[in-house]
């Protein structure tokens, strides 16, 4: 269930205040409810936006999650670019980069 489960967790986290509360109060318990790979678990524990982006997490889910984690816009874009530099191209999904040239 790789990628699907991590996206499902972000979906629930983004839209449900009770899941956000559990994220703050019982993070390990929350993670245990999802069939995550070790890499996915590590990325979530670190709040590693760059790695989540490269894994192929849908960009809209990741953008909302980055906002939830209080990333400033430029820092969020920079985190995705850092992920590409460190982990290589996006592995799955639609939200690949093209020329990497955006507004910021």
């Amino acid at each position: 269930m790789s990628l699907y489960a991590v996206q499902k967790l972000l979906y629930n986290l983004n839209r449900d205040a009770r899941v956000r509360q559990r994220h703050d109060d019982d993070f390990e318990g929350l993670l245990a409810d999802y069939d995550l790979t070790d890499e996915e678990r590590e990325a979530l524990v670190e709040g590693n936006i760059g790695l989540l982006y490269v894994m192929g997490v849908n960009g809209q889910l990741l953008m909302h999650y980055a906002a939830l984690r209080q990333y400033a816009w430029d820092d969020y874009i920079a985190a995705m670019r850092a992920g590409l530099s460190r982990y290589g191209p996006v592995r799955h999904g639609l939200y690949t980069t093209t020329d990497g040239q955006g507004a910021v």
Partner: protein
Amino acid sequence: MALVYAGVCSHAPGITGRAERADPQLREPFYAAMHRMGAEIRAARPDALVVVAAEHFANFFMDNMPAYCMGMADHYEGPIEDPDWLGIAPRRFAGAPALSRRLIEAMMADVDLAYAEEWQFDHGIMVPLHFLLPEGDVPIIPVNINCQGPPLTPPARAYAFGRALRKACDAAPERIALIGTGGISHWPATPDSGKINEAWDREFLDRWLANDRVALTGYTDEETWREAGQGGFEIRTFIAVAGAAEGCVGELYCYEPIPIFAVGCTVARMSLVSM
């Protein structure tokens, strides 16, 4: 009574969330066009506003993804995003559940759609309503077309959905306004955010303004993704509005690429007077 208004506009979260970072000379004419559309919608005295949007995993996920869904709730709330990030405070909107139900029942004669009695609005609806109906004085009926999690509905089906919506609206005693929100080309939520294919956008808009059904329904996802990015899939919302205004042509109020908003900012209206 009938469909009394039909238009389209952009909905990118930067439009409100990063407002201060845009060049005012580009931003203000776009905001003025949004406010013009809002004034026109209120002048049309609608009993409800149907918002055909492309949401971003606010309510629907790949565990049970409808191609089309219409809200049937008593009320709605939003945004699901961090309000400070989006630049829009939490709001509650009245729904029109009885009208929703009649529209859904009527449309089911022609197309398949899901319904939902719970619905949280994300930027796809919150950003347009921030400009169009800041008073929140018109009941809202949300519609989602899945433009995020493939497989996606083909453009021809989006056009047919719009046709069915028009038929249902025209059979209802209420006055109903319609907007579609989304697209056109953009690469949101990637390092390319801010990239805009203006030539592709203008060609699409020419086709939309002419209500060229054959051209509008000829787009393939492979071409759209390559030329217009992931955000380009949201042309389905514009195409649905064209379907609701079949036989009519449009007028462009604004098209302005504003990179920090991550989209070519668009406001356009269909006449609803058949040619």
